Structure formats: structure tokens, C-alpha cells
């Protein structure tokens, strides 16, 4: 099974990223534009999901790219550029939290037991508007904000941004096994929260 998985993982450094790193080292202006285009939105969303503050998230994008500009000449390409950037962004976020709330540690949230499915409403029977309403969007946001940050970040990197298990582990400083357990718990919890909401929706 390990072999099958390995084949699906992306290579450590893609050719595109190697070319982009070389262009950044040469200070080609379009290289910075390309890096910004590829990664700024992901960094912004990652920061927003941790800090819940648009201005601070904006600051994290700026500081992450300033670090890239500062360190690009020493970049050896052992890590993927995206992994490096997201890891820097993640540390920028935790640094900001530590400065604001020195006693809060993102990893201190209790490891909750996996949520077992208890709502079996068939989503196929939902009217189209149930999935696309403003109210549902609020529920979606509330459910993810209600997750412990350790689960939320893994879910966002894996399922929203489609990072690999390996890359997510590298960004957050976790083992791949921990990423898998947290992703599984996050999925069960989010499915349950939305299933409960849709069940109530259908019984109105």
C-alpha cells in the first residue's frame, strides 16, 4: 500500500518550481509575479483560517514574501517552494498568536474522540438552493471555525488546497500518520455538523 501511495505523491521539487526558483534568483520581475499569483491566495486563506482577521492575514502574506525575497539566494531546493512558503506562513501565524496570547498554544486543544455518524439525511435529496444559500455558507464557516485548530489546518491544507499528505506534514511539522488521523477526524466532524444542519433544513 505504501508503494501505491508513493506513486501518487508529487515529486519533492517539480520542474516548474525549479525554473521559478532559478528565475527568482536572477531577480526576473515576472518570477515574483508568478510566485505571487501561485501562492499568495493560499497563504492568505491559511492565515485567515488561523488568525480570523483579514488585516493580519494580509500582513502574513507580506511578511512571507519578504522572507522569500530575503532568503531566495540561499534556497537549495531540498524543499518545494510552495512547502517552504506555507511553512513560513504557518510560523508567521503562530508567532503572531504567541505575541498576542503568550499562553495559548495551538497544539493544546484536546484530542477529541472521532465523531461517529448519527445523521443520515441523503444530500442527493436536498434542493439546489439548500447547498448554495447564504445561510448554508454561514453554516459551512461556523462548522470549520468550531474545529480545534489542529484539525482545521490539516483539513484546509489537504482537502481545500489539495496538498499531499507529505507536504501537509512538512508544513505543519507533523508525521504523515498524524496528518491522516487529523484529516479523518476533521472530515467526520464537518460531515456530521453539515448533515445535522441539512436534516433540520429538510424538516422545516
Amino acid at each position, binding site marked *: 500500500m505504501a508503494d*501505491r501511495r508513493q506513486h501518487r505523491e508529487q515529486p519533492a521539487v517539480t520542474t516548474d518550481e525549479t525554473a521559478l526558483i532559478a528565475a527568482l534568483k536572477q531577480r526576473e*520581475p515576472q518570477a515574483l509575479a508568478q510566485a505571487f499569483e501561485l501562492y*499568495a*491566495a493560499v497563504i492568505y486563506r491559511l492565515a485567515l483560517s488561523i488568525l480570523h482577521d483579514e488585516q493580519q492575514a*494580509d500582513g502574513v502574506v507580506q511578511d512571507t*514574501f519578504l522572507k522569500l525575497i530575503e532568503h531566495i539566494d540561499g534556497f537549495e531546493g531540498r524543499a518545494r517552494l510552495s512547502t517552504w512558503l506555507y511553512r513560513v506562513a504557518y510560523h508567521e501565524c503562530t508567532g503572531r498568536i504567541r505575541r498576542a496570547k503568550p499562553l495559548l498554544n495551538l497544539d493544546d486543544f484536546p484530542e477529541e474522540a472521532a465523531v*461517529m455518524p448519527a445523521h443520515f439525511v*441523503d444530500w442527493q435529496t436536498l434542493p439546489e438552493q439548500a447547498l448554495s444559500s447564504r445561510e448554508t455558507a454561514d453554516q459551512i464557516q461556523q462548522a470549520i471555525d468550531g474545529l480545534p485548530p489542529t484539525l482545521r489546518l490539516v483539513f484546509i491544507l489537504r*482537502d481545500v488546497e489539495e496538498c499531499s499528505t507529505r507536504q501537509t506534514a512538512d508544513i505543519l511539522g507533523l508525521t504523515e500518520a498524524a496528518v491522516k488521523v487529523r484529516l479523518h477526524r476533521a472530515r*467526520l466532524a464537518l460531515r456530521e455538523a453539515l448533515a445535522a444542519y441539512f436534516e433540520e433544513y429538510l424538516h422545516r
Partner: protein
Amino acid sequence: MTTLTLTCADIVRYLSDYLEDNLADDVARAARDHIATCDNCRIVLDSTQQMILLYRDHGRAQRLPLARQTELFGRLAAAFSERRPPGQG
């Protein structure tokens, strides 16, 4: 040869591995057999996949406002051009 059978609790435990096609062939086959006859497990699997797509759409709609993006990129581009490659000053 004995045939592997899975319970609903097994399906929940293997849910993520099943969705990512990470199960050994005999376990995957047993999971498919279970899901074909168990409505609740089919619903849990389908809704988990839909939930992931809902979050992907919802999450990716969050973007830096365009004006802020332009301003921020301008500042970064200036910092980038000020920093010469090694050996060029």
C-alpha cells in the same frame, strides 16, 4: 477462501482511506460490498465527498481584495528589485 466482511464501524474507520483509494484490494472490495447494501454507509460516503467539495468551493472563494493585492505586490516588487543577486552589487 474466506470472504472478508466489514461492519458499519469499519466503514467509518476506513472512510478516508477508501475515498483516497488507499485500501488493500480485498478490504476495498469488502467495503464496496458493504456500501452496496447499506444505505447509511452509502450516504456517509457520498455526503463526505460532497462536504469536501463544498469546503473547497467555499474556501477558495476567499481572496485578498484586488486593490490590496495590487498595493501589496507593488511593495514586494520594489523590495525584490532593490535586492541584487549575489555578486552584482
